[in-house]
Protein backbone atom coordinates (compact mmCIF):
# COMPACT_ATOMS: atom_id res chain seq x y z
CA UNK A 1 0.00 0.00 0.00
CA UNK A 2 2.87 2.34 0.61
CA UNK A 3 3.62 2.47 -3.10
CA UNK A 4 3.75 5.83 -4.85
CA UNK A 5 0.90 7.35 -2.92
CA UNK A 6 1.44 10.55 -1.06
CA UNK A 7 1.96 9.72 2.57
CA UNK A 8 2.00 12.15 5.44
CA UNK A 9 3.38 11.65 8.86
CA UNK A 10 0.95 10.67 11.55
CA UNK A 11 1.23 13.94 13.46
CA UNK A 12 0.75 15.96 10.32
CA UNK A 13 -2.46 14.10 9.48
CA UNK A 14 -3.79 14.63 12.97
CA UNK A 15 -2.88 18.28 12.81
CA UNK A 16 -4.74 18.68 9.52
CA UNK A 17 -7.75 16.75 10.74
CA UNK A 18 -7.92 18.86 13.87
CA UNK A 19 -7.75 22.00 11.73
CA UNK A 20 -10.53 20.70 9.49
CA UNK A 21 -12.64 19.82 12.53
CA UNK A 22 -12.13 23.31 13.93
CA UNK A 23 -13.11 24.97 10.67
CA UNK A 24 -16.15 22.77 10.24
CA UNK A 25 -17.12 23.05 13.90
CA UNK A 26 -17.30 26.81 13.61
CA UNK A 27 -19.50 26.57 10.52
CA UNK A 28 -21.64 23.86 12.05
CA UNK A 29 -22.09 25.98 15.14
CA UNK A 30 -23.12 28.97 13.01
CA UNK A 31 -25.52 26.79 11.05
CA UNK A 32 -26.98 25.42 14.27
CA UNK A 33 -27.39 28.90 15.75
CA UNK A 34 -29.05 30.05 12.54
CA UNK A 35 -31.46 27.11 12.72
CA UNK A 36 -32.35 27.91 16.33
CA UNK A 37 -33.00 31.57 15.47
CA UNK A 38 -35.15 30.54 12.51
CA UNK A 39 -37.06 28.06 14.66
CA UNK A 40 -37.77 30.65 17.35
CA UNK A 41 -38.87 33.18 14.73
CA UNK A 42 -41.05 30.55 13.08
CA UNK A 43 -42.78 29.60 16.32
CA UNK A 44 -43.28 33.24 17.19
CA UNK A 45 -44.66 33.99 13.73
CA UNK A 46 -46.86 30.90 13.83
CA UNK A 47 -48.34 32.11 17.10
CA UNK A 48 -48.95 35.57 15.63
CA UNK A 49 -50.28 34.18 12.36
CA UNK A 50 -52.79 31.93 14.13
CA UNK A 51 -51.43 28.88 12.35
CA UNK A 52 -53.65 25.93 13.06
CA UNK A 53 -52.22 22.84 11.44
CA UNK A 54 -54.89 20.50 12.76
CA UNK A 55 -57.52 22.76 11.23
CA UNK A 56 -55.66 22.68 7.94
CA UNK A 57 -55.34 18.90 8.13
CA UNK A 58 -59.08 18.62 8.69
CA UNK A 59 -59.88 20.99 5.87
CA UNK A 60 -57.18 20.01 3.40
CA UNK A 61 -59.81 17.82 1.77
CA UNK A 62 -61.87 20.95 1.19
CA UNK A 63 -58.85 22.51 -0.50
CA UNK A 64 -58.18 19.61 -2.85
CA UNK A 65 -61.86 19.11 -3.58
CA UNK A 66 -62.05 22.82 -4.35
CA UNK A 67 -59.72 22.24 -7.27
CA UNK A 68 -61.54 19.19 -8.48
CA UNK A 69 -64.80 21.12 -8.26
CA UNK A 70 -63.61 24.14 -10.24
CA UNK A 71 -62.61 21.86 -13.09
CA UNK A 72 -65.39 21.69 -15.66
CA UNK A 73 -67.06 18.35 -16.48
CA UNK A 74 -65.66 17.75 -19.94
CA UNK A 75 -66.57 14.54 -21.76
CA UNK A 76 -65.11 13.44 -25.03
CA UNK A 77 -68.50 12.53 -26.51
CA UNK A 78 -70.09 15.92 -25.89
CA UNK A 79 -66.89 17.96 -25.84
CA UNK A 80 -68.14 20.95 -27.81
CA UNK A 81 -71.32 21.17 -25.83
CA UNK A 82 -69.42 20.91 -22.53
CA UNK A 83 -67.01 23.66 -23.50
CA UNK A 84 -69.91 25.84 -24.59
CA UNK A 85 -71.54 25.22 -21.21
CA UNK A 86 -68.31 25.96 -19.37
CA UNK A 87 -67.85 29.23 -21.23
CA UNK A 88 -71.52 30.19 -21.13
CA UNK A 89 -70.63 33.85 -20.64
CA UNK A 90 -67.70 34.04 -23.06
CA UNK A 91 -68.86 37.30 -24.67
CA UNK A 92 -69.30 39.07 -21.35
CA UNK A 93 -65.96 37.87 -20.02
CA UNK A 94 -64.15 38.86 -23.20
CA UNK A 95 -65.58 42.36 -22.83
CA UNK A 96 -64.38 42.53 -19.22
CA UNK A 97 -61.00 41.21 -20.28
CA UNK A 98 -60.76 43.96 -22.89
CA UNK A 99 -61.66 46.39 -20.09
CA UNK A 100 -58.74 45.05 -18.06
CA UNK A 101 -56.26 45.34 -20.92
CA UNK A 102 -57.42 48.88 -21.76
CA UNK A 103 -57.20 49.92 -18.10
CA UNK A 104 -53.64 48.62 -18.05
CA UNK A 105 -52.88 50.40 -21.34
CA UNK A 106 -54.15 53.80 -20.22
CA UNK A 107 -52.50 53.47 -16.82
CA UNK A 108 -49.16 52.43 -18.29
CA UNK A 109 -49.21 55.28 -20.80
CA UNK A 110 -50.17 57.93 -18.24
CA UNK A 111 -47.72 56.61 -15.65
CA UNK A 112 -44.90 56.34 -18.17
CA UNK A 113 -45.42 59.88 -19.50
CA UNK A 114 -45.38 61.35 -15.99
CA UNK A 115 -42.37 59.21 -15.06
CA UNK A 116 -40.61 60.39 -18.23
CA UNK A 117 -41.05 64.00 -17.18
CA UNK A 118 -40.10 63.35 -13.56
CA UNK A 119 -37.08 61.13 -14.09
CA UNK A 120 -34.88 63.90 -15.56
CA UNK A 121 -35.42 65.92 -12.39
CA UNK A 122 -34.68 62.90 -10.19
CA UNK A 123 -31.46 61.75 -11.89
CA UNK A 124 -28.27 62.76 -10.07
CA UNK A 125 -26.39 63.64 -13.25
CA UNK A 126 -28.99 65.92 -14.84
CA UNK A 127 -31.19 67.30 -12.08
CA UNK A 128 -31.13 71.10 -12.02
CA UNK A 129 -31.11 71.41 -8.21
CA UNK A 130 -30.62 69.11 -5.22
CA UNK A 131 -33.88 70.05 -3.43
CA UNK A 132 -35.93 69.29 -6.56
CA UNK A 133 -34.15 65.96 -6.91
CA UNK A 134 -34.80 65.10 -3.26
CA UNK A 135 -38.49 65.98 -3.48
CA UNK A 136 -38.90 64.04 -6.72
CA UNK A 137 -37.20 60.86 -5.47
CA UNK A 138 -39.31 60.91 -2.27
CA UNK A 139 -42.48 61.35 -4.33
CA UNK A 140 -41.56 58.44 -6.60
CA UNK A 141 -40.72 56.32 -3.56
CA UNK A 142 -44.08 57.05 -1.97
CA UNK A 143 -45.98 56.23 -5.16
CA UNK A 144 -44.34 52.85 -5.58
CA UNK A 145 -44.33 51.78 -1.92
CA UNK A 146 -48.06 52.20 -1.40
CA UNK A 147 -49.58 49.18 -3.17
CA UNK A 148 -51.82 50.00 -6.14
CA UNK A 149 -54.74 48.14 -4.57
CA UNK A 150 -54.68 50.57 -1.62
CA UNK A 151 -54.90 53.49 -4.04
CA UNK A 152 -57.69 51.61 -5.81
CA UNK A 153 -59.64 51.21 -2.54
CA UNK A 154 -59.28 54.90 -1.77
CA UNK A 155 -60.19 55.97 -5.31
CA UNK A 156 -63.23 53.70 -5.43
CA UNK A 157 -64.46 55.54 -2.33
CA UNK A 158 -63.82 58.89 -4.03
CA UNK A 159 -64.74 58.28 -7.68
CA UNK A 160 -67.29 55.52 -7.28
CA UNK A 161 -67.22 52.05 -8.83
CA UNK A 162 -65.90 51.62 -12.36
CA UNK A 163 -62.69 51.58 -14.35
CA UNK A 164 -61.65 55.20 -13.65
CA UNK A 165 -60.33 54.57 -10.10
CA UNK A 166 -58.53 51.50 -11.43
CA UNK A 167 -56.78 53.48 -14.17
CA UNK A 168 -55.72 56.17 -11.71
CA UNK A 169 -54.51 53.70 -9.06
CA UNK A 170 -52.38 51.70 -11.49
CA UNK A 171 -51.11 54.88 -13.14
CA UNK A 172 -49.84 56.26 -9.83
CA UNK A 173 -48.08 53.03 -8.96
CA UNK A 174 -46.61 52.85 -12.47
CA UNK A 175 -45.39 56.43 -12.12
CA UNK A 176 -43.44 55.47 -8.99
CA UNK A 177 -42.04 52.22 -10.31
CA UNK A 178 -41.09 53.45 -13.79
CA UNK A 179 -39.77 56.72 -12.41
CA UNK A 180 -37.14 54.84 -10.46
CA UNK A 181 -36.15 52.64 -13.41
CA UNK A 182 -36.06 55.61 -15.81
CA UNK A 183 -33.88 57.54 -13.35
CA UNK A 184 -31.43 54.65 -13.26
CA UNK A 185 -31.32 54.55 -17.07
CA UNK A 186 -30.57 58.27 -17.18
CA UNK A 187 -27.87 57.95 -14.54
CA UNK A 188 -26.09 55.43 -16.77
CA UNK A 189 -25.97 57.53 -19.95
CA UNK A 190 -22.81 58.72 -21.65
CA UNK A 191 -22.19 62.23 -20.27
CA UNK A 192 -20.11 63.49 -23.23
CA UNK A 193 -23.12 64.60 -25.35
CA UNK A 194 -24.55 66.29 -22.27
CA UNK A 195 -21.35 68.24 -21.73
CA UNK A 196 -21.23 69.12 -25.42
CA UNK A 197 -24.75 70.49 -25.47
CA UNK A 198 -24.30 72.27 -22.15
CA UNK A 199 -21.13 73.97 -23.37
CA UNK A 200 -23.17 75.67 -26.10
CA UNK A 201 -25.18 77.40 -23.40
CA UNK A 202 -28.26 75.19 -23.66
CA UNK A 203 -30.96 75.32 -21.00
CA UNK A 204 -31.94 72.28 -18.90
CA UNK A 205 -34.78 71.32 -21.23
CA UNK A 206 -32.62 71.68 -24.34
CA UNK A 207 -29.91 69.54 -22.76
CA UNK A 208 -32.46 66.87 -21.91
CA UNK A 209 -34.01 66.98 -25.38
CA UNK A 210 -30.85 66.81 -27.47
CA UNK A 211 -28.32 65.01 -25.26
CA UNK A 212 -30.26 62.66 -22.96
CA UNK A 213 -33.50 61.67 -24.67
CA UNK A 214 -31.91 60.11 -27.79
CA UNK A 215 -29.81 57.90 -25.52
CA UNK A 216 -32.54 56.69 -23.21
CA UNK A 217 -35.62 56.31 -25.39
CA UNK A 218 -35.27 52.63 -26.29
CA UNK A 219 -34.46 51.71 -22.69
CA UNK A 220 -37.52 53.61 -21.50
CA UNK A 221 -39.75 51.91 -24.06
CA UNK A 222 -38.49 48.50 -23.00
CA UNK A 223 -39.23 49.15 -19.31
CA UNK A 224 -42.65 50.62 -20.15
CA UNK A 225 -43.56 47.46 -22.09
CA UNK A 226 -42.46 45.29 -19.16
CA UNK A 227 -44.60 47.44 -16.91
CA UNK A 228 -47.57 47.05 -19.24
CA UNK A 229 -47.36 43.32 -18.77
CA UNK A 230 -47.24 43.71 -14.97
CA UNK A 231 -50.15 46.14 -15.12
CA UNK A 232 -52.33 43.68 -17.01
CA UNK A 233 -51.82 41.33 -14.06
CA UNK A 234 -52.72 44.10 -11.58
CA UNK A 235 -55.66 45.01 -13.79
CA UNK A 236 -57.13 41.57 -13.19
CA UNK A 237 -57.12 42.00 -9.40
CA UNK A 238 -58.13 45.62 -8.86
CA UNK A 239 -61.63 44.50 -9.82
CA UNK A 240 -61.71 42.70 -6.47
CA UNK A 241 -62.22 46.06 -4.77
CA UNK A 242 -64.62 47.33 -7.44
CA UNK A 243 -62.21 49.17 -9.71
CA UNK A 244 -63.30 47.62 -12.99
CA UNK A 245 -62.14 44.80 -15.22
CA UNK A 246 -62.45 41.04 -15.09
CA UNK A 247 -61.59 40.92 -11.36
CA UNK A 248 -65.14 41.91 -10.49
CA UNK A 249 -66.64 38.80 -12.05
CA UNK A 250 -63.88 36.61 -10.65
CA UNK A 251 -64.54 37.98 -7.17
CA UNK A 252 -68.23 37.20 -7.47
CA UNK A 253 -67.51 33.73 -8.84
CA UNK A 254 -65.16 32.86 -5.97
CA UNK A 255 -67.35 34.35 -3.25
CA UNK A 256 -70.55 32.76 -4.50
CA UNK A 257 -68.92 29.40 -5.28
CA UNK A 258 -69.68 29.37 -9.02
CA UNK A 259 -66.95 26.76 -9.31
CA UNK A 260 -66.59 26.26 -13.06
CA UNK A 261 -66.78 30.01 -13.66
CA UNK A 262 -63.69 30.41 -11.49
CA UNK A 263 -61.63 28.07 -13.65
CA UNK A 264 -63.05 29.54 -16.86
CA UNK A 265 -62.09 33.11 -15.88
CA UNK A 266 -58.73 32.11 -14.43
CA UNK A 267 -57.84 30.23 -17.61
CA UNK A 268 -58.76 33.27 -19.71
CA UNK A 269 -56.62 35.51 -17.51
CA UNK A 270 -53.64 33.16 -17.64
CA UNK A 271 -53.85 32.87 -21.44
CA UNK A 272 -54.19 36.64 -21.89
CA UNK A 273 -51.26 37.40 -19.60
CA UNK A 274 -49.13 34.76 -21.33
CA UNK A 275 -50.02 36.14 -24.77
CA UNK A 276 -49.14 39.70 -23.73
CA UNK A 277 -45.96 38.31 -22.19
CA UNK A 278 -44.94 36.81 -25.54
CA UNK A 279 -45.85 39.88 -27.61
CA UNK A 280 -44.13 42.43 -25.36
CA UNK A 281 -41.15 40.11 -24.98
CA UNK A 282 -40.83 40.02 -28.75
CA UNK A 283 -41.01 43.82 -29.06
CA UNK A 284 -38.54 44.22 -26.22
CA UNK A 285 -36.09 41.95 -27.97
CA UNK A 286 -36.37 44.01 -31.15
CA UNK A 287 -35.79 47.17 -29.12
CA UNK A 288 -32.70 45.61 -27.58
CA UNK A 289 -31.54 44.77 -31.11
CA UNK A 290 -32.00 48.40 -32.15
CA UNK A 291 -29.98 49.44 -29.13
CA UNK A 292 -27.15 47.08 -30.04
CA UNK A 293 -26.87 48.20 -33.68
CA UNK A 294 -26.89 51.89 -32.89
Amino acid sequence: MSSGLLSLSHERIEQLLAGYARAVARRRWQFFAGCVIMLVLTLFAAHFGEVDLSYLAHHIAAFTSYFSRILPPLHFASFRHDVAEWYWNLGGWLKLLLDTVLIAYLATLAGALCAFAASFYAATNLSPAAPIRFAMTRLLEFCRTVPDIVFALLFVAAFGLGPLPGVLAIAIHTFGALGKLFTEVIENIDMKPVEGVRSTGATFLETVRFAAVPQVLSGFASYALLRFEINVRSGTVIGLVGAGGIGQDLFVAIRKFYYTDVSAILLMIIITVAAIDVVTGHIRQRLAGLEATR
Partner: protein
Amino acid sequence: MTQGARLFAPDGAILRRHRDVLPNGARRAATRLGALILVIGTVAFAVWWLDLGADQLGTGLRQLGKFVALMFPPATGGHLMLFLHAMGETLAIAFLGTLVAATLAFPVSFLAAENTAPSSIVRFLVRRGFDTIRGVDVLIWALVFVGVVGLGPFAGILAIAVSDSGAFGKLFSEAIEEADRKPLEGVLAAGGSKVVAVRFALIPQVLPVLVSQVLYFFESNVRSATIIGIVGAGGIGLQLSEQIRTYDFDQMSFVIIMILVTVAAIDWMSARLRHAVIGPASG
Protein backbone atom coordinates in the same frame (compact mmCIF):
# COMPACT_ATOMS: atom_id res chain seq x y z
CA MET B 1 -28.33 68.08 -42.80
CA THR B 2 -27.86 70.76 -45.44
CA GLN B 3 -24.11 70.19 -45.41
CA GLY B 4 -24.71 66.48 -45.85
CA ALA B 5 -27.06 67.16 -48.74
CA ARG B 6 -24.43 69.31 -50.45
CA LEU B 7 -21.82 66.61 -49.93
CA PHE B 8 -23.93 64.05 -51.71
CA ALA B 9 -25.22 66.44 -54.37
CA PRO B 10 -22.64 66.13 -57.25
CA ASP B 11 -23.80 62.68 -58.13
CA GLY B 12 -26.11 60.54 -56.07
CA ALA B 13 -23.77 57.54 -56.28
CA ILE B 14 -22.55 57.57 -52.68
CA LEU B 15 -26.04 58.21 -51.41
CA ARG B 16 -27.47 55.41 -53.54
CA ARG B 17 -24.80 52.93 -52.53
CA HIS B 18 -25.35 53.53 -48.80
CA ARG B 19 -29.05 54.16 -48.85
CA ASP B 20 -29.83 51.17 -46.65
CA VAL B 21 -27.51 52.33 -43.86
CA LEU B 22 -28.61 55.96 -43.96
CA PRO B 23 -31.75 56.92 -42.07
CA ASN B 24 -34.58 57.28 -44.55
CA GLY B 25 -36.17 60.57 -43.50
CA ALA B 26 -39.54 60.16 -45.16
CA ARG B 27 -40.03 56.57 -44.05
CA ARG B 28 -38.99 57.31 -40.48
CA ALA B 29 -41.34 60.25 -40.30
CA ALA B 30 -44.16 58.08 -41.67
CA THR B 31 -43.51 55.30 -39.12
CA ARG B 32 -43.40 57.82 -36.31
CA LEU B 33 -46.64 59.41 -37.41
CA GLY B 34 -48.25 55.98 -37.75
CA ALA B 35 -47.14 54.95 -34.27
CA LEU B 36 -48.38 58.21 -32.80
CA ILE B 37 -51.79 57.82 -34.47
CA LEU B 38 -51.97 54.23 -33.22
CA VAL B 39 -51.16 55.24 -29.63
CA ILE B 40 -53.58 58.18 -29.58
CA GLY B 41 -56.26 56.20 -31.40
CA THR B 42 -56.04 53.42 -28.80
CA VAL B 43 -56.30 56.00 -26.03
CA ALA B 44 -59.41 57.47 -27.62
CA PHE B 45 -60.92 54.01 -28.07
CA ALA B 46 -60.11 53.09 -24.44
CA VAL B 47 -61.67 56.29 -23.10
CA TRP B 48 -64.80 55.64 -25.16
CA TRP B 49 -64.98 51.92 -24.33
CA LEU B 50 -64.40 52.39 -20.58
CA ASP B 51 -66.80 55.31 -20.57
CA LEU B 52 -64.40 57.60 -18.74
CA GLY B 53 -66.02 60.99 -18.26
CA ALA B 54 -64.57 64.33 -17.26
CA ASP B 55 -67.47 64.93 -14.85
CA GLN B 56 -66.71 61.73 -12.93
CA LEU B 57 -63.08 62.80 -12.76
CA GLY B 58 -64.07 66.27 -11.52
CA THR B 59 -66.45 65.15 -8.77
CA GLY B 60 -64.05 62.37 -7.79
CA LEU B 61 -61.12 64.73 -7.47
CA ARG B 62 -63.16 67.09 -5.30
CA GLN B 63 -64.15 64.12 -3.13
CA LEU B 64 -60.54 62.95 -3.01
CA GLY B 65 -59.45 66.44 -1.95
CA LYS B 66 -61.84 66.22 1.01
CA PHE B 67 -60.42 62.80 1.92
CA VAL B 68 -56.85 64.07 1.79
CA ALA B 69 -57.79 67.04 3.98
CA LEU B 70 -59.30 64.58 6.48
CA MET B 71 -56.06 62.55 6.51
CA PHE B 72 -54.19 65.25 8.39
CA PRO B 73 -53.14 65.04 11.08
CA PRO B 74 -52.73 61.25 11.20
CA ALA B 75 -54.26 59.82 14.35
CA THR B 76 -54.38 56.44 16.04
CA GLY B 77 -57.97 56.87 17.22
CA GLY B 78 -56.95 54.93 20.34
CA HIS B 79 -56.29 51.78 18.32
CA LEU B 80 -52.50 51.82 18.46
CA MET B 81 -52.25 48.36 20.04
CA LEU B 82 -54.64 46.96 17.45
CA PHE B 83 -52.56 48.43 14.63
CA LEU B 84 -49.31 47.11 16.11
CA HIS B 85 -50.85 43.67 16.47
CA ALA B 86 -52.06 43.79 12.87
CA MET B 87 -48.59 44.86 11.72
CA GLY B 88 -47.09 41.93 13.66
CA GLU B 89 -49.57 39.66 11.94
CA THR B 90 -48.50 41.09 8.58
CA LEU B 91 -44.83 40.41 9.31
CA ALA B 92 -45.69 36.90 10.50
CA ILE B 93 -47.62 36.24 7.29
CA ALA B 94 -44.71 37.44 5.16
CA PHE B 95 -42.12 35.50 7.16
CA LEU B 96 -43.94 32.19 7.32
CA GLY B 97 -45.29 32.49 3.79
CA THR B 98 -41.80 33.03 2.37
CA LEU B 99 -40.31 30.28 4.53
CA VAL B 100 -42.91 27.69 3.57
CA ALA B 101 -42.74 28.68 -0.10
CA ALA B 102 -38.96 28.32 -0.14
CA THR B 103 -39.10 24.96 1.68
CA LEU B 104 -41.72 23.64 -0.75
CA ALA B 105 -39.96 24.93 -3.86
CA PHE B 106 -36.40 23.90 -2.96
CA PRO B 107 -36.66 20.13 -3.49
CA VAL B 108 -39.05 20.44 -6.43
CA SER B 109 -36.84 22.95 -8.25
CA PHE B 110 -34.22 20.20 -8.80
CA LEU B 111 -36.83 18.41 -10.91
CA ALA B 112 -37.22 21.51 -13.06
CA ALA B 113 -33.53 22.25 -13.66
CA GLU B 114 -32.00 20.95 -16.87
CA ASN B 115 -28.90 19.50 -15.23
CA THR B 116 -30.64 17.67 -12.38
CA ALA B 117 -34.06 16.72 -13.81
CA PRO B 118 -34.58 12.95 -14.09
CA SER B 119 -36.27 13.30 -17.49
CA SER B 120 -37.34 16.06 -19.82
CA ILE B 121 -41.02 15.14 -19.42
CA VAL B 122 -40.84 15.59 -15.64
CA ARG B 123 -39.00 18.86 -16.18
CA PHE B 124 -41.62 20.12 -18.63
CA LEU B 125 -44.53 19.22 -16.35
CA VAL B 126 -42.96 20.75 -13.24
CA ARG B 127 -42.14 23.95 -15.15
CA ARG B 128 -45.69 24.31 -16.47
CA GLY B 129 -46.94 23.68 -12.95
CA PHE B 130 -44.80 26.51 -11.62
CA ASP B 131 -46.00 28.78 -14.46
CA THR B 132 -49.65 28.09 -13.68
CA ILE B 133 -49.19 28.81 -9.97
CA ARG B 134 -47.37 32.04 -10.81
CA GLY B 135 -50.04 33.05 -13.30
CA VAL B 136 -52.61 33.46 -10.52
CA ASP B 137 -52.20 36.60 -8.42
CA VAL B 138 -51.59 36.32 -4.68
CA LEU B 139 -54.85 38.16 -3.94
CA ILE B 140 -56.81 35.49 -5.81
CA TRP B 141 -54.97 32.75 -3.90
CA ALA B 142 -55.89 34.61 -0.70
CA LEU B 143 -59.55 34.64 -1.71
CA VAL B 144 -59.43 30.91 -2.37
CA PHE B 145 -57.75 30.14 0.96
CA VAL B 146 -60.19 32.32 2.87
CA GLY B 147 -62.79 29.93 1.47
CA VAL B 148 -60.78 26.93 2.67
CA VAL B 149 -59.50 27.86 6.17
CA GLY B 150 -61.73 30.83 6.91
CA LEU B 151 -60.92 34.48 7.59
CA GLY B 152 -57.65 35.29 9.31
CA PRO B 153 -53.88 35.40 8.85
CA PHE B 154 -53.55 31.66 8.32
CA ALA B 155 -55.24 32.03 4.92
CA GLY B 156 -52.76 34.78 4.09
CA ILE B 157 -49.78 32.57 4.99
CA LEU B 158 -51.07 29.78 2.77
CA ALA B 159 -51.79 32.18 -0.08
CA ILE B 160 -48.27 33.63 -0.04
CA ALA B 161 -46.74 30.18 0.42
CA VAL B 162 -48.51 28.76 -2.63
CA SER B 163 -48.17 31.75 -4.93
CA ASP B 164 -44.47 32.24 -4.15
CA SER B 165 -43.57 28.58 -4.43
CA GLY B 166 -44.22 28.99 -8.16
CA ALA B 167 -41.91 31.98 -8.41
CA PHE B 168 -39.25 30.35 -6.24
CA GLY B 169 -39.41 27.15 -8.26
CA LYS B 170 -38.61 29.05 -11.43
CA LEU B 171 -35.84 31.16 -9.90
CA PHE B 172 -34.25 28.26 -7.99
CA SER B 173 -34.20 25.99 -11.02
CA GLU B 174 -32.58 28.75 -13.06
CA ALA B 175 -29.93 29.22 -10.36
CA ILE B 176 -29.26 25.48 -10.36
CA GLU B 177 -28.90 25.47 -14.14
CA GLU B 178 -26.33 28.24 -13.96
CA ALA B 179 -24.13 26.32 -11.51
CA ASP B 180 -20.67 25.21 -12.59
CA ARG B 181 -20.62 21.58 -13.78
CA LYS B 182 -17.01 20.86 -12.86
CA PRO B 183 -17.43 20.27 -9.11
CA LEU B 184 -20.31 17.89 -9.90
CA GLU B 185 -18.14 15.92 -12.31
CA GLY B 186 -15.37 15.90 -9.73
CA VAL B 187 -17.57 14.35 -7.04
CA LEU B 188 -19.00 11.83 -9.50
CA ALA B 189 -15.48 10.91 -10.65
CA ALA B 190 -14.43 10.35 -7.03
CA GLY B 191 -17.18 7.74 -6.78
CA GLY B 192 -19.90 9.83 -5.16
CA SER B 193 -23.54 9.06 -5.92
CA LYS B 194 -25.79 11.60 -7.61
CA VAL B 195 -27.33 12.64 -4.31
CA VAL B 196 -23.89 13.13 -2.75
CA ALA B 197 -22.82 15.15 -5.79
CA VAL B 198 -25.84 17.43 -5.44
CA ARG B 199 -25.19 17.83 -1.72
CA PHE B 200 -21.44 18.58 -1.89
CA ALA B 201 -20.98 20.10 -5.35
CA LEU B 202 -24.23 21.82 -6.24
CA ILE B 203 -25.81 23.07 -3.03
CA PRO B 204 -22.74 24.99 -1.79
CA GLN B 205 -22.69 26.80 -5.13
CA VAL B 206 -26.35 27.77 -5.28
CA LEU B 207 -27.18 28.33 -1.61
CA PRO B 208 -25.99 31.97 -1.35
CA VAL B 209 -27.95 32.86 -4.49
CA LEU B 210 -31.06 31.15 -3.20
CA VAL B 211 -30.81 32.77 0.23
CA SER B 212 -30.48 36.20 -1.30
CA GLN B 213 -33.52 35.54 -3.51
CA VAL B 214 -35.51 34.38 -0.49
CA LEU B 215 -34.61 37.55 1.39
CA TYR B 216 -35.58 39.64 -1.60
CA PHE B 217 -38.95 37.91 -1.74
CA PHE B 218 -39.41 38.43 1.97
CA GLU B 219 -39.13 42.17 1.33
CA SER B 220 -41.67 42.03 -1.44
CA ASN B 221 -43.95 39.78 0.60
CA VAL B 222 -44.11 42.30 3.41
CA ARG B 223 -45.72 44.55 0.80
CA SER B 224 -48.04 41.79 -0.42
CA ALA B 225 -48.98 40.88 3.14
CA THR B 226 -50.13 44.44 3.75
CA ILE B 227 -52.77 44.10 1.04
CA ILE B 228 -54.12 40.57 1.30
CA GLY B 229 -56.03 41.66 4.38
CA ILE B 230 -58.31 43.54 2.00
CA VAL B 231 -59.92 40.23 1.03
CA GLY B 232 -59.99 39.05 4.65
CA ALA B 233 -56.72 37.15 4.89
CA GLY B 234 -55.37 38.89 8.00
CA GLY B 235 -52.83 41.59 8.65
CA ILE B 236 -52.90 45.35 8.42
CA GLY B 237 -54.83 45.39 5.13
CA LEU B 238 -58.02 44.51 6.98
CA GLN B 239 -57.68 47.64 9.13
CA LEU B 240 -56.93 49.68 6.04
CA SER B 241 -60.00 48.59 4.13
CA GLU B 242 -62.21 49.01 7.21
CA GLN B 243 -60.96 52.57 7.71
CA ILE B 244 -61.64 53.47 4.10
CA ARG B 245 -65.11 51.97 4.34
CA THR B 246 -65.87 53.93 7.52
CA TYR B 247 -64.16 57.12 6.27
CA ASP B 248 -61.63 57.19 9.14
CA PHE B 249 -59.02 58.81 6.95
CA ASP B 250 -56.85 60.16 9.77
CA GLN B 251 -56.37 56.59 11.02
CA MET B 252 -55.82 55.40 7.48
CA SER B 253 -52.96 57.84 6.93
CA PHE B 254 -51.46 56.71 10.25
CA VAL B 255 -51.58 53.08 9.13
CA ILE B 256 -50.06 53.95 5.74
CA ILE B 257 -47.20 55.76 7.45
CA MET B 258 -46.73 52.70 9.66
CA ILE B 259 -46.56 50.49 6.58
CA LEU B 260 -44.05 52.78 4.85
CA VAL B 261 -41.79 52.85 7.92
CA THR B 262 -41.97 49.08 8.41
CA VAL B 263 -41.28 48.37 4.74
CA ALA B 264 -38.30 50.73 4.78
CA ALA B 265 -36.92 49.10 7.94
CA ILE B 266 -37.34 45.57 6.53
CA ASP B 267 -35.73 46.60 3.23
CA TRP B 268 -32.77 48.03 5.06
CA MET B 269 -32.28 44.95 7.26
CA SER B 270 -32.74 42.52 4.42
CA ALA B 271 -30.36 44.44 2.15
CA ARG B 272 -27.68 44.20 4.85
CA LEU B 273 -28.30 40.49 5.32
CA ARG B 274 -28.18 39.94 1.56
CA HIS B 275 -24.83 41.68 1.32
CA ALA B 276 -23.56 39.56 4.21
CA VAL B 277 -24.66 36.37 2.43
CA ILE B 278 -23.52 37.29 -1.07
CA GLY B 279 -20.34 39.09 0.00
CA PRO B 280 -18.09 36.18 1.07
CA ALA B 281 -19.29 34.00 -1.82
CA SER B 282 -18.43 36.53 -4.50
CA GLY B 283 -15.30 37.87 -2.79
